[in-house]
């Protein structure tokens, strides 16, 4: 950055710092803060920016600091041990060698203050003159204590010579190392100061007082570094899965579908028998279905009789039926519904809806599975059906094309499939630009006459369903279903995921 450019972006506070350094180069943050009457934290921030602008350089050095220890404080208050001793000897209170004064006697002897004569302590002339006088050690301790922070260099040469003794004599002082950052002007920085930096008295915050009193007119507001990073912020958001649900709900409603809902706990009757799933169908096995203790109640006798008949011999549908006895005790079993088609058939049997009708539901279903990256024992199914006298299989394809196009899947391919209650049945594939291949996006079919006859429905009914999580994982590019559904979702992702648009 050129000097001119740098000068342009300088803020008032930064100019103040440069001026302070111009007066006295080589200042620490604290000194600058004192000089500019700013907080040390903001000065540190500003100095870092000045360094980036090439106006200031930072030199780092390690300095030694001394502090007076607890023991040192005691010496300042009471004097050195040997001083206390000669005081006592002078007053005649201590005369002979004793355990109590052993250490002090050693030190006093070394100072040549006393001699020992057959255990009797005698003061030397030097000792006599030392009584009541401060030792060099005490003086230095007091000097250190007087300074708030005492750097090694603050001490005179003679004072420095005492430091080893202070360290040796029971750690009277504490020695610390500190990294000191000192700011110096660079050549550019010096030039800037030479050119003259205009500083104005600026204000940081626009306050109600300034607005009310009209003072804002006279005020120069500090300009911000508008490109500086700011703290992250998160608010309340929809759960990512809820976004997809909303999106699909909107598509259904736009296409004239009404929402339906049904219970999570179902009887096998509504979940399977009602739609002509045979009673020995493999999907009814315990490995796939959560059976619950106890049994439920079957609907009215007439309907149960009709279901029994159509299962056993096709009733009046022209079907052969399964040719095996239908047992009510199997239909009474309670379970967690394995698909939302149970809810569709409740619409037929309980709500007794009549054509024309279009309904949908997006709700939870359950499969007795262990949890892994792609499976959870519970997930969501999207289901829609259309009932009308005029409906045929090609209409189903038309509905699917429209539905998926609205969700952003423009290219579909239909594969014949098998499903016990629809004929024909379809596996729906959608082209994924993202993956550059066909992916399965749903299942569909036209309800068999046997599945509709017990409800007196003569109209045709077409329906389709898809797994919500599978689509959502595709949209959010997730590889583990547990990131999406359940308490295992990471808040970090919930706070930052990108809002999806209608495309898969």
């Amino acid at each position, binding site marked *: 950055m050129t000097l001119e450019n740098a000068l342009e972006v300088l803020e008032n506070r930064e100019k103040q710092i440069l001026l302070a350094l111009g007066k006295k180069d080589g200042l620490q943050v604290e000194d600058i803060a004192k000089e500019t009457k700013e907080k040390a934290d903001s000065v540190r921030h500003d100095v870092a920016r000045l360094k980036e602008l090439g106006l200031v350089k930072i030199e780092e050095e390690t300095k030694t600091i001394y502090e007076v220890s607890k023991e040192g404080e005691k010496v300042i208050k009471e004097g050195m041990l040997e001083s206390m001793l000669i005081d006592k000897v002078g007053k005649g209170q201590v005369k002979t060698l004793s355990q109590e004064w052993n250490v002090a006697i050693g030190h006093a002897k070394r100072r040549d203050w006393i001699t020992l004569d057959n255990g009797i302590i005698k003061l030397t002339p030097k000792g006599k003159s030392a009584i009541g006088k401060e030792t060099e050690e005490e003086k230095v301790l007091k000097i250190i204590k007087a300074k708030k922070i005492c750097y090694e260099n603050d001490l005179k040469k003679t004072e420095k010579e005492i430091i080893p003794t202070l360290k040796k004599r029971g750690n009277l002082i504490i020695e610390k190392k500190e990294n000191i950052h000192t700011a110096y002007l660079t050549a550019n920085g010096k030039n800037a100061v030479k050119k003259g930096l205009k500083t104005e008295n600026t204000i940081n915050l626009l306050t109600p007082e300034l607005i009310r009193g009209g003072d804002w007119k006279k005020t120069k507001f500090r300009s911000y570094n508008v490109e500086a990073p700011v703290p992250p912020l998160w608010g*309340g*958001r*929809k759960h990512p*899965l*809820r976004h997809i649900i909303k999106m699909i*709900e909107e598509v259904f*409603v*736009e296409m*004239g579908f009404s*929402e339906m*809902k049904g*219970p*999570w706990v*179902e*009887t096998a009757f509504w979940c399977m028998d009602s739609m002509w799933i045979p009673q020995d169908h493999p999907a009814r096995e*315990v490995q796939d279905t959560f059976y619950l*203790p*106890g049994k*439920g109640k079957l609907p009215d006798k007439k309907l149960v009789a009709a279901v029994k008949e159509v299962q056993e011999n*096709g009733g009046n549908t*022209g*079907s052969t039926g399964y040719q*095996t006895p239908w047992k009510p005790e199997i239909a009474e079993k*309670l379970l967690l519904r394995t698909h939302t088609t149970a809810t569709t058939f409740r619409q037929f049997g309980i709500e007794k809806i009549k054509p024309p009708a279009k309904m949908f539901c997006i709700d*939870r279903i*359950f499969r007795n*599975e*262990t*949890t892994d990256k792609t499976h*959870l*024992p*519970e997930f969501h199914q999207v289901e829609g059906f*259309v009932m009308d006298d*005029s*409906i*045929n*299989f*090609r*209409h189903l*394809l*038309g509905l699917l*094309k429209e539905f998926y196009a609205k969700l952003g899947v423009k290219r579909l*391919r*239909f*594969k*014949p*499939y098998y499903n016990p209650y629809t*004929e*024909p*049945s379809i596996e729906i594939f959608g082209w994924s630009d993202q993956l550059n291949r066909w992916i399965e996006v749903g299942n569909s079919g036209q309800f068999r*006459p046997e599945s509709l006859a017990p409800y007196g429905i003569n109209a*045709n009914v077409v329906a389709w369903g898809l797994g919500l999580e599978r689509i959502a994982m595709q949209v959010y590019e997730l590889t583990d279903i547990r990131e999406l*559904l359940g*308490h*295992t*979702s*990471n*808040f*970090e992702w*919930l706070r930052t995921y990108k809002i999806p648009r209608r495309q898969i």
Partner: protein
Amino acid sequence: MVTLDTDIPTMQKYIGKYLDRAELEEILFRMGFEIEDVEGEEVKIDITPDRMDMVSPQGCARAIAGYINTETGLKEYKSKKSGWKIKVDKNTQNKWPFVAAAIVRKLKFDNAKIKEIIWVQEKLGATYARNRKKGGFGIYPLKGITPPIDYIATDWKTTKFVPLEFDKEMTGKEILQKHPTGEKYAHIIEKWDKPIYFIDSKKQVLSMPPIINSQTFGHVDEKTSDVFVEATGPDAETVHKIMNMMITMLADAGGEVESIDIEYPNGKTVTTPDLKTHKRKIKVEYINKWLGLELSASDMVELLGRMRYGIGKVTEKEIEVIIPCYRTDVWHDVDIADDISRAYGFDNLIPEMPKVPTTGGMLDKSYVCEDARTTLQGLGFQGVFTLALTNRETQFKMMQLPELPHINLGHTEEASINMVRVSLTPELMRCFSENRQNPFPQRIFEINDVVVPDDSKDVMARNVTRAACASSHPNANYTEMLSVLEALCKTMDWALEISKAEYPCFLEGRSASITVNGKKGIIGEIHPQVLINFGLENPVVVFEFEV
């Protein structure tokens, strides 16, 4: 899903036309089947459960050959009389009453073909026959068996034979206890007063259906060329169908089929295999209306031929369709319509938007829940989506709450679950627990269903929608959450009543029972011990109520 494991050369041989992998895959896709996995020449084809006749390479090739016009129309299977008889004992009739049997001669077995047969036998037994519950079958080298054969219920303890893979004689009882196959299928026959055996006229035990064959008489190897095949079961239809699927496969592999007479104790004699076709008259108009097409009778005849149906009498309005003996999935005319649509090709069907005049909309309750969600989001709360299947430890014990009535799960494959949630709060606690590393404040909510027992319902339970909302950060407190609750209630125009109440999950003196729009709920600061139970260090304040 059942897979057919085969390889491209085998398929080409039986189809009678060269198809590369991509062509085979495309044709199967149009027919409704997917190639799952390919390694070199080997292919795995997913066979849907309606078309178990395609689980053998021969059966699959038979269908493909029709679809691509190489060999169309009905494939008829015929049998000569063998003169063999099976006498059915009356004591079998209350257990496993139906028998079908046949002889197939001039087969050329190699290792691959033996494997193929065992494969198909296993797959049919597991799927169509529902793990042998609806029937089982066996294949034996013909050499060494002396007719007539008895299908007879004897006793558990004295009749002995050497079961497959073993080298010593065992009684029926011992087989169920000690032989792996015996143990696996014991549940089917263990309650019978007597086991059933096939015993030939030299008193040699051939097998104990539907469990296991004899090692001496029921072991096919590369030297075998003629075989005895039997199927037995509780349901005549299934027995004949699995027999037909097996026999047509062996016939397609080059075998010559001979029938056997089954003499039932009621005096009736049934000649098997029953390779008879069935007829069904379909109405051209009905099929067209079902599919949304305008096909003529002759169009349909052509399409039906490609799906290997035979054709009887045809008029402009009606076609007599002859259904092959191996098809098990034709109950109604719509099943034939489905085959017509497959032959026509889904890619060739032109999608058309129907004109069905309806207006759309959500349920009232859904609108209410969505408004409440939007409000809570606006108040800074993040929506979460927790699981309905949980455990008593989380829902009650860790919350220091007594057990409430709940839906107990029976057998679960996933060990960590044993009930359906009755409350959302413990699940929100788990969310916090999983997100301890993330920055605070953490504010979350969920409006979703729980399930409570309810004897007045046909399903003995009822879904209840609840709203739960929780805040966690170092300064989280009761006041904060009551403010949120009041803001929510004001926005939603819900009356709110608060009265002091203590709950073991909350800190004493810092909780209340609430009534929101006439429905019960709670609010409070979570008890420190509960926080510790969930491994949390920051306070949590929560409210939950029924919507």
